[in-house]
């Protein structure tokens, strides 16, 4: 049985009027002669979100994601088009909007929940849960202005989700806060989904979109490029980003070890090469998603050369997240590796065999990349699917290859 749509958007357009001088606005009001130029933020947007479904919105900076969310929430009015939203909406458009810096976190819980339309009695009930979830402890009675940005987010997120709205709208909320809290947020949002609530959120974290959303919308310059299954949309978007060399978040977060080498990456106008695929396999050539500690992994990427006489270096990295490298492997440290020159149209297969993987717990990704001859210009990088370490005995973050001997003399 199909659920009723919670959110329906039809042919939505949003344009901003740009006035060159502030007085033009007044002149236009009085003389009724148009004095503005139009800027289309959103053009012909239509979609629907059913109850219990979640929608992710992705796209480059300035694609209109935030504007769309604001219209959904109702803080902005569409220029033309229809929009229907059924149910109570809680929005986290900017974290801590509505917090009063001079008041304690506890007072702000009441203020914020009142803004979301909750009665005082209900807030009193929720208060404990909110404080607990935010993990603020004693800080809850200090003025909010003394909070770190992470604490701010934690409190705001706790309030917005504790209120139990029918629809939760989040703009980039998960990008702040530490990993532990991010994990809690994802759990909370998953539970939200299990409770058949509707969620809309935009993020630059493709991983979160894939994890949390059923459908995704890819916006580009105010138009819907693609709408559909989130895995598919994310994959296409990432492809687009990689090939257009546009500056998306994952590329911004190339591991620290190679951070300084990619500074001028955006300056290259001609694309030199393209990573077609990246995969992680066992020695037998089977694709891996669960990694057995101390096993051998084969990291492979296929690179298409797009210009003549390309020379370069290759690299792989194990990444905890898009910001946190665990281990890096770069060819510039080794002699005797084929560095080209390669000719246009050639397909390169790069393979790195890693013996005895040392990770014992957790999840990680493999990042593959290509740098120019100097190793300073980072052409291309691409993330693999997420890998999980298979459960095993022991404690601690890593495991080492080892041999025991016990001798009795």
């Amino acid at each position, binding site marked *: 049985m199909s659920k009723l749509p919670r959110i329906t958007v039809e042919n939505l357009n949003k344009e901003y009027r740009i006035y060159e001088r502030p007085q033009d606005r007044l002149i236009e009001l009085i003389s009724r002669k148009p004095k503005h130029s139009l800027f289309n933020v959103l053009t012909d947007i239509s979609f629907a979100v059913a109850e219990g479904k979640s929608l992710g919105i992705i796209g480059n900076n300035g694609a209109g994601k935030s504007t769309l969310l604001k219209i959904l929430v109702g*803080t902005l009015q569409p220029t033309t088009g229809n929009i229907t939203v059924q149910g109570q909406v809680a929005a986290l458009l900017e974290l801590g*909007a509505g917090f009063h810096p*001079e008041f304690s976190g506890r007072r702000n819980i009441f203020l914020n929940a*009142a*803004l979301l*339309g*909750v009665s005082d009695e209900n807030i009193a009930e929720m208060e404990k849960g909110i404080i607990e979830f935010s993990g603020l402890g004693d800080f809850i009675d200090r003025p909010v202005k003394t909070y770190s940005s992470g604490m701010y987010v934690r409190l705001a997120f706790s309030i917005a989700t504790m209120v139990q709205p029918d629809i939760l709208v989040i703009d980039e909320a998960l990008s702040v806060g530490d990993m532990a809290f991010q994990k809690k947020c994802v759990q909370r949002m998953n539970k939200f989904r299990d409770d058949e609530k509707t969620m809309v959120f935009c993020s630059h974290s493709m991983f979160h979109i894939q994890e949390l959303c059923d459908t995704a919308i890819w916006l580009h310059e105010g138009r819907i490029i693609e709408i559909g299954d989130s895995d598919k949309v994310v994959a296409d978007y990432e492809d687009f980003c990689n090939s257009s060399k546009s500056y998306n978040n994952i590329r911004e977060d190339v591991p620290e070890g190679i951070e300084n080498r990619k500074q001028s990456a955006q300056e290259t106008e001609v694309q030199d090469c393209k990573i077609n695929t990246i995969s992680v396999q066992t020695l037998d050539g089977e694709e891996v998603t669960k990694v057995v500690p101390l096993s051998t992994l084969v990291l492979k990427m296929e690179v298409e050369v797009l210009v003549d006489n390309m020379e370069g270096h290759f690299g792989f990295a194990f990444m905890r997240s898009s910001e946190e490298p665990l281990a890096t492997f770069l060819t510039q440290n080794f002699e005797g590796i084929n560095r080209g020159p390669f000719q246009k149209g050639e397909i390169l297969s790069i393979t790195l065999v890693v013996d005895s993987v040392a990770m014992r717990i957790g999840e990680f990704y493999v990042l593959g990349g290509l740098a120019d001859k100097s190793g300073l210009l980072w052409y291309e990088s691409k993330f693999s699917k997420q890998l999980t370490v298979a459960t095993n005995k022991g404690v601690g973050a890593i495991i080492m290859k080892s041999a025991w001997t016990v001798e009795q003399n």
Partner: protein
Amino acid sequence: MFFNLIREWLQAPFVNYRLFHNFTRQDFFSQFTASMGGVLWLFLTPIVHLVIYSFVFSYIFKMRAPPEFGEINFVIFLMIGYLPWFAFADAFGRAPNLVIEKAPLITKVVFPVQIIPITGTVIPYLTHVIGFTIFLVYLTFKGYLSVSWILLPFIFGLQFLFTLGLVAVISALCVFLRDLQQMIALMLTIWFFLTPIIYPISLIQSESVQRLFLLNPMHSFISAYREIILLGTVSPVHLMIIVPISIISYVSGGWLFMRIKHAFGDVL
């Protein structure tokens, strides 16, 4: 459409009572939380003003209260006009920034924005009604109490509605025309001196000029307070001005605010 907007405006503080209550409490107390003097400033400012005005007008200019009010100290005469004016001026002067200050909230959270001008007017009135009441209590000891004093809350309430209408208009327009901020400050000074607060209206010789002052509703409000408190009566001409003007201001100001509040998000 028109009536819907008006109804929404009239109901705003009641339908959204929680929010209204929380907002008022927040803004009322935030006046003091960051400053060391706290509540002290609330009383210090009008007291200092009164001392200065009394010194200048009563001592230097040797101003006397007009004879029709009997033998009273000019300072008392001044204060009856000045305290309600201060409530008005406070609300009026803050109006330009009300909505602009709340910009992060308005663009990020959906809530009945009409609460903002209401809170912005309630707070100065709440603050100054305290001072005014203390002053009235002092006057009862002086033996001024009369039955007609029951009219005072009524007049004060009308003055509140009159102010609220203006505050709603100014706070909304300032979003689009930032220049209004400077104009309002200037207007307030002009308005203050064109209202017979620090001087009795009888000081004006020409009858026709005196009649011109009836165009200023604040003059009628202040005259009404003076007549009620000191004489126990009120001239119908003042009532005939303040009752309709307050209702007109309240309703039309609210209507205008409700009409343009949707555009705030685009400009803020």
